[in-house]
């Protein structure tokens, strides 16, 4: 059997950062939007950047800053950011078996840096054949590149955002970003039903304080999607 090449950590790191490079075209404007939105929500520049460093997730940051701006109680803010970040739990479960051999320090670091993009790329990499011992360096190359690009874009947005007048309606950019994320994830009839029910319930409960409608709508949509999905499973 021919020996498959075993790239060095350095080679893996470079391969990872090369692979993530094209998607940075989307990361930079999204980071700018999140930075501008944090200024619009009334966070100080330092608070906006701290949220970005601690949460490192565009969606969680947007939801959290809107709830903070609305003066929501801590529990509501946490419930909303928990729900919008649940997909990270799914990623964590999928990657865990591949990382079990690493030291705890490595696993803490990888967990902190995990995002939609780095997860998707790393899962593909781990699915490729070959006994490569340094695959986690591939994850590091992709994630570290993405991390600094994201944080710098947020900082730029935070600094620029303070000077944008509200008549420009730049808050609408956030809604448009979510539209662009929503449309591609509606693939099956159950997805569609989940989205419609979530939208309807969110509108019906819009009068509730602290944007509780987000939590109510999300849970209603997830339950309906799950019910339709399971009925389908039983028939199949």
């Amino acid at each position: 059997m021919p020996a498959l090449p075993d790239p060095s950590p350095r080679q893996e790191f470079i391969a990872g950062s090369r692979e993530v490079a094209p998607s940075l075209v989307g990361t930079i404007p999204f980071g700018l939007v999140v930075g501008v939105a944090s200024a619009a929500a009334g966070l100080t520049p330092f608070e906006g950047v701290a949220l970005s460093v601690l949460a490192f997730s565009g969606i969680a940051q947007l939801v959290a800053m809107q709830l903070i701006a609305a003066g929501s109680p801590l529990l509501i803010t946490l419930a909303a950011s928990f729900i919008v970040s649940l997909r990270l739990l799914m990623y964590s479960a999928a990657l865990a078996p591949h990382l079990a051999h690493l030291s705890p320090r490595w696993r803490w670091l990888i967990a902190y840096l995990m995002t939609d993009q780095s997860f998707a790329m790393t899962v593909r990499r781990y699915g490729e054949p070959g006994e490569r011992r340094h695959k986690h360096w591939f994850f590091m190359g992709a994630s570290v590149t993405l991390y600094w690009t994201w944080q710098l874009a947020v900082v730029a947005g935070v600094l620029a955002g303070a000077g944008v007048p509200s008549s420009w309606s730049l808050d609408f950019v956030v809604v448009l970003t979510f539209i662009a994320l929503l449309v591609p994830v509606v693939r099956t009839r159950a997805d569609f039903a989940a989205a419609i029910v979530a939208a309807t319930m969110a509108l019906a409960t819009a009068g509730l304080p602290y944007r509780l409608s987000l939590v109510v709508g999300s849970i209603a949509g997830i339950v309906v999607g799950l019910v339709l999905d399971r009925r389908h499973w039983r028939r199949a």
Partner: protein
Amino acid sequence: MSTWLAIVCVGITTFVLRASFIVFADPQRFPRIFRQALAFVPPAVLAAIVAPGILLNQGRFDPSADNLRWLAGLVAIGVAALTRSVMASIVSGMGVLWFLQWAMG
């Protein structure tokens, strides 16, 4: 103070979700129904965020042509479906909104 508390707690929440199985738990103990439910998180959550953002006009449900964000949002949904591009959706939606705001004076 409460802002800082919220920022730190949101950071802990996202980290704990990321670290859940990588650092703390065994994925074998992940019940299947929960995995199925997670598949519906993206469409449900995003729809619950988007709908009030385009269909509420000064806090009231308004699916009429007077609601400029609704019109701009519909255009962006069409563009997103055709192009799958975040940039194209933002540019088209903001373009329509600014044009309508300008046209309505």
